[in-house]
């Protein structure tokens, strides 16, 4: 999938990864890559502006943590972030169902030919 397509949904994806537990930037991008089966292979640096923006919006909080002698910034989801994630999931689900409904028959036709 193209990076700009992923970027449009980056907030949803990041909130979803961080909702599973505190994570630092490297962990978040690794999880995105693994969970998407390598489909979401963004430039890794793009994740930090998004994390900072989500923190400014109050959807994430962060703190310093030492991990194997390295200082890392750990991000956690806030209650507002959890609510935003739930809302964005609902929107995404409605959107994908709509797209599938429109493309579905054609997709099936395409498979058949």
């Amino acid at each position: 999938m193209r990076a700009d397509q992923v970027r449009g949904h980056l907030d949803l994806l990041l909130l979803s990864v961080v909702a599973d537990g505190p994570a630092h930037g490297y962990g978040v991008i690794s999880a995105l890559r693994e969970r998407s089966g390598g489909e979401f292979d963004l430039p890794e640096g793009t994740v930090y502006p998004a994390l900072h923006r989500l923190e400014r919006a109050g959807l994430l909080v962060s703190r310093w943590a030492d991990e194997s002698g390295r200082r890392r910034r750990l991000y956690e989801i806030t209650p507002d972030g959890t609510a935003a994630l739930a809302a964005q999931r609902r929107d995404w689900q409605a959107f994908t169902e709509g797209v599938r409904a429109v493309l579905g028959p054609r997709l099936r036709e395409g498979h058949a030919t």
Partner: protein
Amino acid sequence: MTDDVAGPVDRYLDRMFDLLAGSGGAGRRALVEVEAHLAQAVDAELAGGASRIEAERRAVARFGPVRTVASGLLAADRSGIGSMLRRVVAAGWLVGGVGMVVIGLSAPLVWAVGRLFGKDLVAPDQPGAHYTAARCAELFEYFPHAGSCRAASIAHHFTEEVRNRIVAGVLGVLVLAAFWLIRRTRRRWLARFRPFTQVPPTRVLVAVAATAFGVVSILLTGQGLDALMIGQRTSAGANLASGLVSAVAFATFLPPLVRDLRLPTT
């Protein structure tokens, strides 16, 4: 610090540091995060069997163009119009302070021009200006040995010109000292003004200062030369001296400006 043995990661971080300059705590934190990320990415590449240099190259390439990431970070940590206005105030404060100091530095030069080539080259008195009797009496009180009312006026305005420049220089030093003090103070009442000392990135300040001093230098020097060419001495020396000092200030800001303009874009 960049040196001959700096690898791709160090060079990337140096560039990131430059691009985030002036972004305060948010920029510093971002830099620490990026450094930790790249270190972990390099470790992963090394574990996969890559050489050190190749591991660093891949980690940097995967991270993305430094300008894109830095501008994304700056945009994400920006807090809107209020923050922007505070940065404009801070930039005006700093560049204005430096400008006042530069005016102060022109005082000895203006004084020397007046002493060597005539005070009328500095004073703004127009030839043929009319002075009232009361004004003449007042001017002769300041300069009783002046040969004429016009000479007394020129001597008075010459002294004023030099004195005003010294005052501007001293005020400039105080303005810059206040800026420095507010950034470092632990006193709460003074620290309230700290948001107004959050300057834009250094490269922006340097570009603004170089442009301002360059333009002022050209205008004043041109004005001074033009006046001399048409045989009008009034203020010509003062303008030329100010133009020269502005040119020196411009030359001071030019190397860092050129250095930044020559930096790679990725």
